[in-house]
């Protein structure tokens, strides 16, 4: 494997402002606050200052609560939390309080409200501990950021960041599929003509490199960086990071695209035979195999928010699938031509599709409504969304990156870069400002400022984790594995009360079991000898037990009725007695 950084002449002058160095916690906090949250928070902070001053004055004027050391607290109470930050962690609206007389209910509700309030406030407070800030590219006046070349950026940034821009010239085994591991450290390359390589792309340390001697349609990392799945010509294979073939899964044939659901340990595959299959990686079992009946499935993506698989079809529709349902949860008509690529953002709010009709469309996937539609001259063949919401679209051999596709109408790309061959695979590297592009002539790692999430969760996906940490994480992740049954369009469904009726539930049970567990056995009269099992006798015996339940019910209802009547009578008598006595003072009358 040869790696070579290609430097072409830059077609722009070096007038760029590049990604600012990320702000550290030892910098002044106020400055950071302003820079991060913009003017709004700045104003808010000022207001808060004012409020704090006011409070302070009030405190001073009113009864001063002094400490033993005769000093009063200049900032009494807990520090205020900005509203927008609270909003960020808000889960759901509070419920209106119940009427007062439900004491127990009131108590429960107030307690849970208190707890959630505390959780919210604490989370908002601890947001302060996320010191890293995302950078962005800013051009001079009259300068489009899309005209800034990668070389210029690489030159302007620090050496380590600059080293993240590189090209791998791999002309032999042509167009490459790309996959970054969950932590963003490892890169997996799968050439169409059988070339397979995985390496730590930052240190450029090769872990393995083989040729499977078969066409490869897709590659995907599994839950750790020591296993990956490869969709080869016939079967699905699993290799470890040393290139040793672990499994050949014959149940999964003609796989074209794969997605890995990290929290469910599910590998979802879409095949040329229009099968969508789910493989549980932790147990090795096939969870579901769904025949979509929509032809060749070569467009696939997952919704990271709810683990729903999105499939694009040649009739311009996008379908949403879960392993629990044999039919598509949702079918959307998105394009007039076939769908070429689909991508869903990290929060699960927006879906971006590109079609044969050379359009790029943004949908609100929660409301299933189209938001904006763009026309790309060449149409986008590959789409990828970054953690921070940057959209990369490949049109032929040009990779374009867009910002804020859903919030503001975009007229030109944020960045653009021409690669050597036509693009085949495209993915943003998690926690890095890097976009990996697999194309006909190899692989290109692009610098895209502001793409990656600057703050990583050390317990979830830690790019700097040690082997020990990785092992611990694996155990924990397996323990916290989410069952495939819990995949649904709305992940909060689990917290809902099942409002199905008893009958509905019973029906479902019968369906799942194949028989009715509560059904009563039919009475079969015993065979008796000496002519006592004659037809008439049998009928008579049957008659004895016929409608026993019904008879019981009737008897009971009659008894109840009698009892009720008695009670009624008693009550009436009592009432009459009470009404006869008119007032408490009657007893004094002679």
């Amino acid at each position: 494997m040869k790696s070579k950084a290609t430097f072409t002449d830059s077609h722009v002058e070096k007038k760029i402002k590049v990604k600012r160095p990320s702000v550290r916690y030892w910098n002044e906090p106020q400055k950071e606050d302003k820079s991060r949250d913009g003017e709004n928070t700045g104003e808010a902070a000022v207001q808060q200052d004012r409020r704090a001053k006011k409070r302070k004055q009030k405190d001073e004027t009113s009864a001063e609560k002094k400490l033993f050391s005769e000093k009063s607290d200049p900032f009494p109470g807990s520090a205020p939390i900005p509203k927008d930050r609270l909003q960020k962690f808000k889960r759901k609206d509070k419920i209106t309080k119940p009427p007062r007389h439900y004491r127990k209910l009131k108590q429960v509700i107030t307690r849970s409200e208190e707890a959630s309030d505390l959780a919210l406030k604490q989370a908002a407070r601890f947001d302060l501990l996320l010191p890293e800030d995302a950078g962005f590219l800013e051009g001079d006046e009259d300068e489009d950021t899309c005209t800034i070349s990668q070389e210029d950026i690489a030159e302007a940034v620090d050496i380590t960041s600059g080293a993240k821009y590189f090209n791998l010239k791999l002309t032999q085994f042509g167009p490459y599929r790309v996959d970054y591991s969950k932590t963003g450290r490892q890169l997996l390359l799968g050439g169409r003509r059988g070339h397979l390589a995985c390496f730590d792309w930052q240190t450029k340390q090769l872990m393995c490199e083989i040729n499977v001697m078969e066409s490869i349609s897709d590659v995907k990392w599994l839950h750790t960086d020591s296993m990956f799945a490869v969709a080869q010509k016939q079967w699905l294979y699993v290799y470890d990071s040393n290139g040793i073939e672990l499994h050949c899964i014959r149940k999964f044939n003609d796989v074209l695209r794969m997605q890995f659901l990290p929290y469910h340990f599910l590998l979802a595959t879409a095949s040329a035979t229009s099968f969508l299959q789910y493989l549980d990686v932790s147990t090795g079992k096939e969870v579901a195999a769904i025949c979509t009946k929509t032809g060749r499935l070569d467009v696939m993506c997952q919704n990271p928010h709810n683990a729903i698989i999105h499939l694009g079809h040649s009739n311009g529709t996008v379908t949403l699938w879960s392993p629990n349902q044999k039919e598509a949860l949702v079918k959307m008509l998105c394009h007039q031509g076939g769908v070429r690529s689909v991508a869903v953002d990290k929060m699960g709010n927006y879906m971006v599709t590109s079609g044969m009709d050379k359009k790029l469309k943004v949908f609100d996937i929660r409301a299933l409504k189209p938001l904006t539609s763009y026309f790309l001259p060449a149409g986008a063949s590959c789409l990828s969304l970054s953690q921070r919401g940057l959209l990369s679209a490949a049109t032929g051999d040009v990779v374009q990156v867009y910002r804020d596709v859903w919030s503001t109408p975009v007229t030109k790309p944020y960045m653009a870069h021409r690669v050597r061959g036509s693009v085949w695979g495209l993915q943003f590297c998690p926690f890095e400002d890097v976009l990996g592009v697999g194309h006909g002539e190899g692989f290109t790692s692009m610098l895209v400022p502001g793409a990656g999430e600057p703050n990583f969760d050390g317990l979830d996906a830690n790019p700097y984790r040690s082997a020990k940490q990785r092992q611990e994480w694996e155990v924990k992740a397996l323990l916290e594995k989410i069952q495939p049954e819990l995949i649904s369009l709305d992940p909060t469904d689990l917290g809902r009360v099942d409002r199905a009726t008893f009958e509905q539930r019973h029906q479902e049970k019968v369906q799942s079991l194949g028989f009715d567990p509560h059904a009563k056995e039919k009475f079969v009269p015993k065979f008796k000898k000496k002519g006592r099992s004659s037809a008439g006798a049998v009928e008579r015996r049957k008659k004895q037990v016929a409608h026993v339940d019904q008879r019981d019910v009737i008897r009971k209802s009659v008894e109840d009725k009698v009892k009720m009547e008695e009670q009624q009578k008693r009550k009436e008598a009592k009432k009459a007695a009470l009404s006869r006595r008119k007032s408490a003072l009657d007893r004094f009358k002679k």
Partner: protein
Amino acid sequence: MAKVSKIRKSKKRSKVAGSSSKKPPVVYDDEQEEDVCGAEEDVSSEEDDGEDERKRQKLLEAIGALGGKRKHALAERSEAAVHMSEFSMTADDEADLSDLIGTIEKTPAATAQTKKHLKNLQRSKNTVECPLSKQENERIQRDVAFQKAALEVSRWQSIITQNQRAEQLVFPLNQEPSGPKPIEQVVMGWEARTPLEKEIFSLLAANKQPILDAVLTPAEEASVKAMDLEQVKIRRAERQKARALQSYYEAKARRERKIKSKKYHKVQNKAKRKEFVKQFEELVKTDPAAALEELDKMERARMQERMSLKHQNSGKWAKSKAIMAKYDEGARKAMQQQLEVNKDLTQKLVTSLSKEEEEEEEGEGNTDMLPDFVNDAEFKQDSSNPWMRGRLSEDPTEMELKDTMDVTAEGASAVTKEAEEEEGSEAEGTEEDALLREFDSRRKQRQDQESDTSAVIVNDGDDGVEEDQVTEDKVAEISDEEEEGLSEFTRMYRGIGKSLEKDAGSKDGSAELEEGLMRIRSVDDVDLLPQETPTEPQQAPTPQHQKSAEQQPSRSRKRKKGIELREVLTKETKVIKVPLAPTVTDSEEKLDQRVLIEEAFAGDDVISDFAREKRKREDEGKPKVIDLTLPGWGEWGGLGLKPSKRKRRRFRIRTEVPPPRKDQHLPSVIISEKRNSAITPHQVSSLPFPFENPAQFESSIRTPLGRTWNTERTVKKMTKPRVVTQLGAIIEPMADEQLLKGKKKVSARRRSRNTKTRTQPAK
């Protein structure tokens, strides 16, 4: 004669009940009668004509003394009494009403009014009710005991509920809060060590100066503790009453000394045993060491008893008695007694001591002679007392029972037969008990009134009568200097009586109201409800429903017109300028002929396909009509014959209309209507207890508990265990101090809540 007095009294009672201000018009002429009435006069005399009466009485007494025979009996009485004792009577001076009336008719001095009155009396032949049976009597006693115990227990109720509701309980309960203490507290806990310091502190202590920075000096506190004038007056009145009671008891004791009945002494012994127990209790309070010894002795006796089986039914004597018991009442009684003794002896000793009672007794000083039930629990329920609210309200029958008990007690006092002596004494006991209880209750009422004038005291009407009687009693007793305070009392009582009357009226009204409520709640009337109530609410919403149903289709139609599939797909698009034109186009695209063709014919085909599919799905979800008519069944069949319309209608089954589809207003979307049954086993299927609707429950579990989503502090708070016990610490039952502390806490909280509610509107 005794009978007469009895009748008199009851008559007077009823009069007073009717109009308390009126005085019974009784004129005394005869000598014989006046002896009896002398005592009565004392009771009934009022303030206004007190002087004359007293003079007259003196005269009468002087005349009576000439008789000589009854001198002795009268001398026994050291204080004025409400009730005549039957023990002062002898068999030979038994008088009949008719005799008396006969003499009156002979004497011309008697007024017509009196004669009429007496005639009326003669005509009425109401016999005196017999005393309560032993069982009933015991039941009443048990009732009283239960109420006392309940009151005792109910004191703990608030602290218990408080603990039950507490988010977390840390055992042992009364722990010092861990963590840093404010420096003030730490300094307060400082001890004097050097000799100089010790000397200073001893000086301070000697002069009753505050060592710590207290609000009040001990002297000040003492003065605050001192009672105010009214309280003093009340106390004094109480003491007077107590003195009167004491004289009663002295008289009683004197009487009892002379009784020779065996049975009576048996009863007496029993009482003595009880008294012993009481004394023991006292001893426990005063001298624990001696009490312990006593307890040991008792325990040993009990153990012996338990071992010996002495008083059980297994003995020879007992067996013989058991055989006899069927026929002989005496044997039965003896057996019962033995069993009782056994029960008493083998019972485990329970000593319940309350400090408050002790204090009260100490305050009163001369209560040695008084029985313990002076401090008994209040018999009547007091609605103003929060401790009593939780219990069931008293039955009217029970109240009646109580009344009858009183009456019979008095009746029994009138009975002079020797055979009924025992019962008489018993009855008397109950009578006195009732009196004492009354005093007690009245004292409590008074306190209540003082503390809370607005509090409504619910009481029976009869009570008021008795109260009046007692006030009269008191007036007769007390000397002039005390009269001032007591008149205040009477006023108060009268006020209570009036308020009672009002109450009675209001209570009745409230009872009616309650009944109205009850009617709806009761199970029986549930059947009646559906005929009446549901019709109203149902009628109201239906027109709205119809309206909305009418509106909805029109709206949806509009919507449908508004959003068309084609429009959705051919929405105005923004053209993006791309700086770098792609040089290489996808080779794959060119290869795929079918895709190219589809691209060429893009548009209508895709859209119409989708629309068709959607329509198909919609049709699938629509309700289907199942026709089960069998042609030729029950009527003529054959070619060209159709089943009748009626029959077809009858056998056609319509399924319910499903709710509107989720993709109703989304033309370019098909949403599956299938229920996701995979998740149902993991969902909560029925609403947990305190929640009323799913929304409340769902919002209560909206915040995750795990460490993945929360800070450490939040997790710890949200997963706080309900009960925490300290390892190795002894968890002791709550002490009385805890109760006081809890009360303080509760009151403080209440106060704070009040202030909160007050401050909130100001915001």
